[in-house]
Each structure stands twice: as C-alpha cells, then as structure tokens.
C-alpha cells in the first residue's frame, strides 16, 4: 500500500467533498484541473473518457472520483477517493439530522437553499466549460452536444439513448476521420 499516494488523494479530494453543492456535477471543473493540470494523473483524453464512463455507468455521476482514484492507485485509490468525497458531507448531514430532531428552522433551510443555488449553477457551468475545453471531435462534438441538448430540453428524449447515440456516431465517424 502506497501511503504517500493515499495521502495525496485525501488531500485533493476531501476539500472537494464540501464543494459538492447541488450534487457531484459541481466538482467536475476542479477534478479536471487537479488530475490533468496539477498532478498529471491523467491526460486530457483520459479524463474525457472517464467523464463519459461516469455519466453512462449506473450509480451517481460523482463516481468519477472513484474512476480517477483507480487510475492513481488501483482499488485502494478508488476506495480512498470515493470515501474522501462521500464521508465528510455525510458526517455534516448526520450531525444536522441530530440537531433537526430538537431544533427545526425552515428560515435557515430556505436561506441555505437559495444562497447555494447560484453557487451550484456557477460550478456546474464551469464543469461544462472545462469539459468543452478538452472535448475532441471538433465540429462533430458541438453538433452532437447541441442536438442532444435540444432533444433533452424540448423533446424529453431518454438520456441514456442520447449517450449511446453519441457514442455510436463518434465510433463510426472516428474510423474515417481520425485514423489511429
């Protein structure tokens, strides 16, 4: 077991736990910055792959941290990264659940909800932007992303069907456009 790597993983991912505002999608931008630019655990292409896997696989998309952790230090790395992200906020919620039994205050709950909403929106948009920066496929990527957004927003398409379609289109076009 490589303790130095485990400590680095904890140091990188534990602070991000507190920033998972509105869900795991809010930390994508910093995950990309840390694992590609700062620590060089992954290339931009690999990060893009793992992002795709985390959105297509069952379970919360926040398991992207486990995928990154696995690349750093195998199963131990995946466990460390996942627990670093899930445990701290769970502890906060556990304490809150305790307090809530004796002291309920809807005013604060509303204030937290309304105050954190624009922060969450900014974070998730930054995540979209950071994926866009490293996206591959040029115009194709834009066409697929915009078409999928329209299908999702106005046609209520099934998200998993869209992911599969995007994958198939790129795989077919890729054979001709980007020979290995």
């Amino acid at each position, binding site marked *: 077991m490589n303790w130095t790597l485990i400590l680095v993983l904890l140091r990188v991912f534990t602070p991000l736990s507190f920033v998972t505002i509105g869900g795991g999608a809010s930390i994508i931008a910093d995950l990309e910055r840390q694992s590609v630019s700062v620590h060089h655990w992954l290339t931009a292409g690999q990060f893009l792959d793992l992002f795709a896997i985390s959105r297509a696989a069952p379970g919360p998309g926040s398991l992207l941290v486990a995928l990154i952790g696995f690349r750093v230090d195998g199963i131990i790395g995946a466990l460390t990264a996942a627990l670093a992200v899930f445990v701290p906020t769970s502890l906060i919620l556990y304490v809150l659940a305790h307090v809530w039994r004796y002291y309920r205050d809807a005013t604060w*709950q509303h204030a937290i909800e309304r105050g954190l909403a624009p922060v969450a929106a900014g974070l998730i948009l930054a995540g979209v932007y950071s994926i866009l920066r490293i996206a591959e496929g040029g115009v194709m990527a834009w066409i697929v992303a915009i078409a999928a957004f329209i299908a999702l927003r106005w046609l209520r398409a099934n998200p998993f069907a869209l992911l599969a379609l995007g994958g198939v289109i790129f795989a077919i076009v890729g054979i001709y456009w980007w020979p290995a």
Partner: protein
Amino acid sequence: MYREFVEIRSWFSESEFLSSLAICQAMPGVNVVNLAVWFGFRLRGTRGAIIGFCAMVFPALAVIIPISIAYGYWGGYPFVHHALAGIAAAALALTLNMASRVATAAVRHDLISLAVLVVVFAGIGLLRWSMFELVIIVAPLSIGWAFYRQRTA
C-alpha cells in the same frame, strides 16, 4: 425512494419526505448519499445512517471498479476512445441541461445571485482558481444575502 418510503412502506409522510428532500438537496453532498444517511438516521439512528451510507456507496463502487479494470485493458484502443468522446459530447448536454435548470431557478429576480453565479463561473472556469477556497468565501456570503433578503422581504 418516494414510492418505496412513502407509498409502499409508509415510513414517512409525504410532507416529511419532501422537506427532507429539500434539506438533502440544499446541503453539500451527493443527493442520493445524503438522502440515504438522512432517512437511515430518521429510521434507526446512528446505525441506520451508517447502513444507509454503505448501502448507497459500496454497491456503486462494486460496479465502477470492474469498469475501471476494463478501461485499463481496452482504453488504449482508438475505437473505444472515439466512442467515449461521443458519449462525452452527449453527456455534456446532460450536464448543461442540469446547469441551465439550476441557473434559471437561482437568478430569478435577483442581480446579486446572478453576480455570484458569474463570479463562481469566471473564477473557476476561466481563471481556474482553486474551487474550495473560492466557494468557502462566496457560499457563506451568498447564504447570508439570501437570509437578509428573507428577513427584509
């Protein structure tokens, strides 16, 4: 969860479920994990919270680890990478859709909220500042502002 907890098992009333959901979404953390800890605690105290956490996290990990191993084997093939790049492009739309819903709800009738959104996006997306430090400063200010507005409204 709603069907299971409220309709089938009657463990919680509808209003109890909805207020719990609101808290779990407002607090930092991944929503499904938050809900599992919260409802676990409400049902069986500390033990329930721990079981709820484990039941949510470990099965998901048990799925993602074999996928990681498979990616280790086949991730190098261009075909796999192309397919994943396509999935990523479509997944970008999913994330953007989520962001646009949160954003429109967040900035309605409030310029300060819009400013918070822009600062967070610009700081992290464009200037690539460290997320934790920025949020630790901006989030309490934004919550404080929301609290002040409620008081004066």
